[in-house]
């Protein structure tokens, strides 16, 4: 099937690799490519080790980028080399996928570490233990309703006998590489120059989420791969006829159904993309009169994703709207607040240890993309005379959302959403930019002088975009930091969690955000989700007994263990919150080191309703029993109990 498979560009490409320019040719040989990648991987590992032992950021960032550029350069050269064959470029895409997985793999080869990874780890353990779907996850309430990743992991883990983390890594490297291959297939289908397809893959691989965010063991990583292949299959269906069109579309529908069971937001974005590209086919049909009805495959995907997701939300994932709405609502409110000067924003790179060049490149990348985007649209006159004009215009509209997402990065809640959108919108940008740029660069001899700038620009894009993605604590190991998702996960808390899980399996616990993460993942505990209606953080904020309503809530909900990190009163969390993002806790003022008073923590050792049953160097586990000591409780907020 030509589809899957080989795009029009490849057909024009020579069958076998021929000698190209010296350095490019040398770098692009498979042996050199893998040897340099091996050296790069060791350099990155060394950078991580330096960071782990508290090395200077300027040093470990520099070493990291040296290793990273060493790894990606040969694959990129192979993709962009003039005489690469289609097969050679495909190998280049695969190797680029593999080497861009290395930084995340080396970040935590021992087990799950990122916030979402720990939540999904628990979800897989729940599935393997209970054998039923849709179990509520204590860390991220909604992920149990989208069990696609968990089913896949449980199946591979259970059938192969591998441990959890090797299985998760295997699936993630598979989806990571397959995602890039899909972009390459799209490039082959849409762009006239084979190097354009390679450049599209490179541009996509250098998006802010590809290196770290979309490589974590989380449902969006798997969904992203499905999303890209759905788009690729729909596009190839559109360009085929008869049996081939039907079969490709059927496969795209199948992947869409799998996507619905895997991730909510990806399905929504897919529906939106299908709508945008479908509408662009309808709106611009007079511009390209040939091939009427090209909107139909997109309409099929739009209908499948929209109706499928609606049915899924109505039938299974009832909490989807409630989960997503606060992010959207808060982000818009914060953005409006910023625009009106009311504040509520976040400072870019605040408290960051990232080197200046990374920050500058991070701030330069979006304007550079805007400039390139509008220049290509202008110079190609909206892809005039391009065979895939209508699709490209649709993808350009979709890609332009990247620019709309940029202001949201200035708001705390919007930044989460903006970061998640880049993996999608960069697809549109990569495809729309790669074609015209590759033609402009390589078609005319007089432009050859610019080619020297290509590696520099791409390197700058990689460095800047990665820097604009996840923060230092996520990207690099380091010494213990209180209140960091990744650097607060210590051998001590993991050991405590395991012991806790053995002694008190499936217990309900109250603790801070960071201890909860470990206890839920490794101790099979159910953590309380603090909120204004369930103010468990009040236990930590004042050295007084909890209010009767909180006692009632804790007792009736079966929360029996309180786990206290003794460092709560000594530090302010790196992330900025002790329990949850919306907690009503002021940052410490003046000489204060923490908003949690030591007296409140000390009091747990003295009150009759708590018995300390387990202690480690930094953690204390208390068994709560309010009823046994006659603690007053009542069942409505703010109620008072008259003492006898």
């Amino acid at each position, binding site marked *: 099937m030509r589809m899957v498979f080989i795009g029009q560009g490849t057909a024009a490409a020579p069958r076998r690799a021929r000698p190209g320019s010296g350095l490019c040719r040398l770098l692009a040989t*498979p042996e050199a490519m893998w040897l340099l990648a091996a050296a790069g991987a060791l350099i990155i590992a060394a950078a991580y080790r330096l960071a782990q032992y508290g090395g200077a950021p300027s040093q470990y960032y520099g070493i990291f980028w040296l290793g990273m550029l060493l790894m990606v350069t040969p694959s990129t050269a192979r993709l962009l080399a003039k005489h690469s064959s289609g097969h050679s470029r495909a190998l280049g895409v695969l190797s680029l996928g593999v080497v861009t997985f290395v930084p995340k793999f080396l970040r935590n080869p021992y087990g799950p570490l990122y916030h979402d990874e720990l939540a999904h780890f628990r979800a897989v353990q729940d599935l393997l233990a209970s054998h039923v779907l849709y179990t509520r996850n204590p860390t991220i309430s909604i992920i149990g309703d989208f069990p696609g990743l968990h089913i896949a992991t449980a199946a591979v883990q259970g059938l192969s006998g591998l441990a959890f983390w090797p299985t998760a890594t295997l699936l993630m490297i598979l989806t990571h590489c397959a995602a890039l291959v899909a972009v390459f297939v799209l490039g082959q289908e849409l762009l006239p120059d084979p190097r354009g397809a390679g450049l599209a893959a490179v541009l996509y691989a250098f998006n802010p989420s590809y290196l770290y965010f979309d490589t974590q063991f989380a449902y969006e990583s798997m969904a992203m791969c499905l999303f890209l292949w759905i788009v690729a299959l729909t596009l190839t269906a559109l360009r085929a006829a008869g049996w081939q069109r039907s079969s490709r579309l059927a496969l795209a529908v199948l992947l869409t159904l799998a996507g619905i069971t895997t991730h909510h937001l990806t399905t929504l974005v897919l529906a939106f993309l299908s709508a945008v590209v479908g509408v662009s086919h309808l709106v611009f049909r007079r511009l390209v009169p040939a091939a009427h009805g090209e909107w139909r495959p997109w309409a099929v995907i739009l209908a499948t994703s929209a109706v499928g997701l609606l049915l899924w939300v109505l039938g299974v994932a009832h909490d989807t709207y409630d989960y997503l709405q606060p992010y959207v609502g808060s982000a818009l409110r914060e953005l409006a607040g910023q625009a009106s000067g009311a504040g509520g924003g976040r400072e870019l790179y605040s408290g960051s240890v990232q080197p200046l060049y990374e920050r500058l490149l991070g701030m330069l990348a979006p304007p550079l993309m805007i400039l390139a985007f509008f220049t290509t649209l202008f110079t190609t006159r909206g892809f005039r005379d391009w065979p895939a004009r209508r699709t490209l215009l649709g993808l350009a509209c979709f890609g332009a959302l990247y620019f709309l997402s940029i202001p949201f990065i200035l708001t705390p809640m919007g930044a989460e959403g903006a970061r998640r959108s880049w993996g999608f919108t960069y697809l549109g940008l990569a495809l729309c930019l790669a074609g015209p740029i590759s033609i402009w660069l390589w078609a005319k001899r007089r432009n050859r002088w610019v080619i020297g700038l290509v590696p520099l620009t791409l390197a700058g894009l990689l460095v800047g975009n990665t820097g604009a993605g996840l923060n230092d604590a996520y990207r690099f190991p380091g010494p213990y930091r209180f209140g960091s998702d990744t650097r607060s996960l210590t051998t001590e808390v993991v050991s405590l969690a395991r012991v806790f899980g053995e002694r008190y399996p499936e217990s309900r616990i109250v603790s801070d955000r960071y201890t909860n993460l470990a206890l839920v993942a490794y101790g099979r505990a159910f953590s309380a989700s603090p909120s204004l209606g369930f103010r468990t953080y009040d236990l930590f904020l004042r050295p007084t007994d909890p209010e009767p309503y909180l006692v009632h809530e804790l007792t009736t909900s079966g929360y029996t263990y309180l786990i206290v990190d003794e460092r709560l009163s000594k530090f302010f969390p790196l992330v900025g919150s002790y329990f949850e993002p919306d907690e009503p806790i002021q940052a410490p003022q003046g000489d204060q080191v923490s908003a949690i008073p030591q007296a409140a923590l000390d009091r747990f050792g003295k009150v009759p309703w708590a018995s300390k049953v387990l202690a480690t160097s930094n953690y204390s586990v208390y068994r709560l029993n309010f009823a046994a000591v006659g603690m007053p409780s009542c069942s409505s907020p703010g109620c008072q109990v008259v003492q006898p």
Partner: protein
Amino acid sequence: MSASVLTLRRDGLVTMLLTSCLVVTVLATLLEAPVVVRVPVAVPGVLLAPGQAWLTVLSRRPDTRRDTLMSTTLAAVLSLAALPLVGVLLNSVGVLVTPVSLGLGLLALTLPATILVLRASRMAEERVAVDAERPEPSHRTMTRHVLQAASVALFVAAVAWGASWQHIVDTGPFAQLSYAGDLTHLSGPLVVRPSQPVTVPLQLTTSDGQPWVGTITLRVDTKVELTRAVRLESKDVVPIVVSSPREQGLHDVTTMATRDGTGEVLILTLRLRVTTK
């Protein structure tokens, strides 16, 4: 033999091999075979067989061309996508979602396609009686492949070596003090009679496996009832006996374990409800 027939034969063979891997995987899981046996068959069987079988069925028209790398990637993505669909289907009809049930579900999905592929492959072979001779790979090609494989192996080894340097954040050796025995599941004040001997079983664990050496002190309310120097192997349990107070009501028993050398203090608390009833 024509190229399309060769392709069909090759695809049929690959599909059959992968489906066999899936069958063996399910059987090996049922028989609880060791991991070394299951991994080599489970990975291709689960992550390639369903996608490969259906892709081959869908692309067995003579006019179709396939790029191996691309179609293998798509086969893997399709196989991966099949897993959630099978899982959701099993769950919706009330079947427990176990690895074996998922494996059987995948088999049910894969076998029809495999049969179709094998039938097409056999029919194609019957049409062409004479088998074409395959060109032997040249010495140069072989050397190139060996070099490439060696460079990939070196890359994998480098990544594995680099991975061995990384570890989870370690704040240093730590000790853990907990109740053992009957007190492990302590849920509230312990009801005792006045002056009744109370056994407090304590377990001390060290993260580095070294013996814990130090002093254990038990206070009842504010009065020190017992101080004992101990040397315990990690995870050993030491039972400490104290007498409950004579006065009725709630009393605090505090256990302090002070480690020699570091001076680290670990504390446990216990409430006694002294009553004559």
